[in-house]
């Protein structure tokens, strides 16, 4: 998973429109995938650090928890209903959001676009 996240980091940081969308977003997000945790540190729209957890000492603005199977389905080029959006995962009980949800909502387009990056890559057949 760390390789995928690093790849997402590279895609995000080389997408000027996404960096511009996230220009006011400088926060740490906890991404939970099953038992694994990753701290994603964003700075002015760039993802500057991906740090595997767990860590009780790392503060984060909000978290998104899901599982590897759900994420795999989420990243399919054409996901099935419910797996097509992070809020869909929450609605079908395969995702959970904690922390400052308003911070997420203010940056929702940006964060959704970041989370869906592997889907775009698979659509392109990469």
């Amino acid at each position, binding site marked *: 998973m760390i390789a995928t996240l690093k790849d997402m980091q590279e895609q995000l940081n080389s997408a000027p429109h996404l960096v511009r969308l996230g220009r006011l977003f400088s926060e740490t997000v906890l991404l939970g995938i099953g038992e694994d945790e990753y701290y994603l540190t964003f700075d002015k729209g760039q993802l500057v650090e991906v740090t595997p957890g767990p860590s009780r000492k790392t503060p984060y603005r909000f978290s998104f928890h899901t599982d590897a199977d759900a994420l795999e389905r989420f990243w399919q*080029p*054409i*996901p099935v*209903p*419910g797996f*097509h*959006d*992070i*809020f*869909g995962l*929450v*609605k079908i009980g395969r995702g959970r959001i904690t922390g400052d949800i*308003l911070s997420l*909502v*203010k940056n*929702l*387009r940006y964060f*959704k676009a970041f989370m869906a990056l592997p889907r775009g890559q698979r659509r392109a057949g990469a």
Partner: protein
Amino acid sequence: MSIEPITGRYLSITVGGAARRIYFEEAGQGRPVLCLHTAGADTRQWRHLMNDEGMTTNHRLIAFDMPWHGKSLPPEGFETDEYLLTTDAYIETVLAVMDGLGLKQPILAGCSMGGRIALQFAALYPERFAGFIAIEASDFQPAWYDIDWFHRPDAHGGEMGAALVSANISPYAPEVERWNTLWMFMQSGPGVFRGDLSFYTQDDSLIARLGDIDTARTPVHMIVGAYDLTCTPEDAQRTADAIPGATLAVMDELGHFPMSEHPDGFRPFFVDALARMPKARG
């Protein structure tokens, strides 16, 4: 170069004793179909059907922007008003538009909150319509989000609203129409989406009325997209089950804004719905 057949004009009506300037569009001739847009959007959601010659040869499609939406102005004094749509105001507005346009027993087609109010009309004013097409409509949907997120001074409600409702758009939707659909939400005036959601997520008065709907007199056909997280096929099925004689079609590859997000995918379902409607009574 081409000029579309849609024409737009303005209509002055009175709602709640106060003037409203309503923008409406129409195309085609024949059996009238009054089309209601979703929360946070406007008539542009219907433009594909209104530009569809196969649709407009035998149907006069009419859509209007609700007050506060699109090119319809908010009421005078809006600057000190809090916009909160109610069932009563919604009904009064639709009836006033129908009277203003001289529409006799149109088919009423509404999506999302437009579908909700279509079902309210089916229960309360069936004699005014030939039939009802309720798209992405259900008896009641409590919010799974905080509607106050979408009207605050420190963030752009339209951009947040668009990001939220993108959850309801199917991955089968062409990218250009996905973003044209979201653009309407991005353009929505401050507090308008929130005010619509207040009606959509807090007024549960339809539930008790569903059993009163007489589909033998005025048919009710429902259509729902499998990718709709807000009104799921299960929500629509529950609602259809409570209306004796109502029919339901599930669109496997569409979401909450079918006529707008994926016009080609939606078209056969709308054609089928219209075929289920009777001709207007004399």
